[in-house]
């Protein structure tokens, strides 16, 4: 079997995983996939974090992608970083750069097995700050300067591709070259606050083509996090595994220890368990119902008859879920337009699934129920029905959602588009 086939059936341990250390964040990006802002009082303690690292070491997880929120606002971030590296678990952390002053940058340059990824969503301050907030561009640039000055080898610059920055691809590459960094571009998903801005920010069909063509022509050395395999139907598959790793080779551990299939799927439907339960993370990874379901051979459903299914695999589970599309049908951004009819058929008051996990700092966001309380922590894994192929209503499993979308409600610190 090819490697990718082994991966589809799941492994005994993840190869790597995303670990969101905190929901606290100094920024309030409009598209935040984890709806971060406020710290959750039930966050894993320093000792609990170290226990997670011990498990990952025992399971031989090769490395963790630490994020959040903004992971460096946890005072124990540096302690957890060192502990992880000392216990054979490599660390890449994703940051807006706020704490990367010259001293920390020098410290990182001295540290083996750590990788730094700076988030940036515009090659110019106006484009970036529109999404990430005033001053965020400057913060990112300062961090990149400090890392370069300290001799930190090849940080990553990670860009979420939007309607507003697709034309800046060459400029992003130039910024990366200037700082000795490697460019990474990733797909916007309608997850977390991303759902609120999806309609206005996700690339148009023409821009998807533009993005694909750029990757083919100039994408050598540009990382993609394998997030564009839905574009493979345009032609040659892009480099990478081209498969959804959620629950199979990767997953998410969130700040309160909840384990989800993927960081873009923070919703009860994709909750596999909690690391505080008996058996810890290992038991969740190896025994959860949700992951067992995801590791079954996928039939492809409505996409099976499409000649491109082998390359695109039906696209992204989270993108489908959070646009209210069936999981066994086309991706909302299917390049052949196969989802267009289903999207258009949704009625005007159609409500997409909304996660109750919301740590945003601002007052009622558009299209959200005003639910401010964090999800109650259960000590045992909830009896959870696995994700089902849905050939009837996409909302078949959903509890009815309340609230009416209110467009144009701003996120703190960000000007309202078109106001």
């Amino acid at each position, binding site marked *: 079997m090819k490697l990718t086939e082994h991966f589809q059936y799941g*492994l005994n341990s993840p190869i790597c995983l995303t670990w969101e250390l905190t929901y606290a964040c100094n920024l309030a990006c409009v598209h935040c996939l984890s709806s971060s802002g406020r710290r959750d009082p039930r966050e894993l303690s320093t000792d609990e974090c170290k226990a997670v690292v011990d498990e990952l070491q025992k399971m031989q997880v*090769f*490395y963790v992608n630490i994020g959040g929120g903004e992971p460096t606002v946890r005072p124990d971030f540096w302690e957890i970083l060192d502990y992880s590296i000392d216990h054979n678990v490599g660390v890449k952390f994703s940051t807006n750069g706020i704490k990367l002053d010259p001293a920390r940058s020098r410290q990182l340059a001295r540290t083996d097995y750590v990788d730094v990824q700076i988030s940036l969503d515009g090659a110019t301050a106006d484009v970036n700050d529109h999404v990430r907030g005033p001053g965020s561009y400057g913060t990112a640039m300062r961090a990149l300067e400090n890392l370069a000055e300290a001799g930190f080898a090849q940080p990553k610059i990670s860009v979420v591709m939007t309607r507003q920055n697709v034309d800046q691809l060459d400029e992003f590459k130039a910024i990366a070259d200037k700082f000795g960094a490697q460019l990474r571009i990733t797909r916007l998903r309608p997850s977390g606050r991303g759902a609120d801005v999806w309609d206005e920010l996700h690339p148009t069909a023409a821009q998807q083509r533009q993005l694909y063509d750029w990757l083919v022509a100039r994408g050598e050395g540009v990382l993609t996090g394998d997030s564009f395999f839905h574009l493979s139907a345009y032609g040659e598959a892009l480099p990478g595994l081209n498969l959804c790793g959620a629950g199979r080779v990767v997953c998410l551990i969130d700040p309160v220890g909840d384990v989800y299939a993927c960081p873009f799927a923070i919703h009860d439907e994709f909750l596999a368990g909690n690391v505080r339960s008996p058996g810890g993370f290992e038991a969740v990874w190896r025994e959860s119902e949700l992951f067992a379901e995801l590791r079954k051979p996928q039939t492809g459903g409505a996409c099976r008859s499409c000649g491109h299914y082998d390359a695109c695999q039906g696209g992204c589970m989270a993108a489908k879920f959070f646009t209210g599309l069936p999981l066994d049908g086309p991706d909302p951004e299917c390049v052949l337009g196969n989802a267009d009819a289903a999207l258009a058929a949704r009625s005007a008051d159609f409500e997409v699934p909304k996660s109750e996990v919301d740590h945003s700092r601002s007052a009622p966001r558009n299209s959200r129920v005003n639910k401010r309380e964090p999800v109650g922590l259960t000590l045992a894994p909830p009896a959870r029905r696995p994700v089902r192929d849905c050939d009837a209503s996409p909302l078949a499993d959903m509890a009815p959602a309340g609230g009416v979308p209110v467009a144009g409600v701003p996120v703190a610190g960000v000007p309202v588009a078109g106001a």
Partner: protein
Amino acid sequence: MSSSTPVFDPERPYQRSPSVALREESFGALVYHFGTRKLSFLKTRMLVDVVVGLESHDDVHSAMSAAGVPEAESPAYLRALAGLASAGTIEPREIP
């Protein structure tokens, strides 16, 4: 990864690189190189045994026979090992 990797020489002793983590799976092994961030998949148990056994043999050939590599497959294994050497997964071992 150095661009001046020495030519693979199966007459010499080798070892798994210290920058590499190896995790056995039912289908062979996953190998992760912390420096290059490349993930490799060793597709047979026999190849895994060769790689793991390198450090206790004086040359690659004896590591291969100790792992039971049949003569007929020797060229394919040597090619695979040469690839692993240029990827930095295995490296020449200094003889004390």
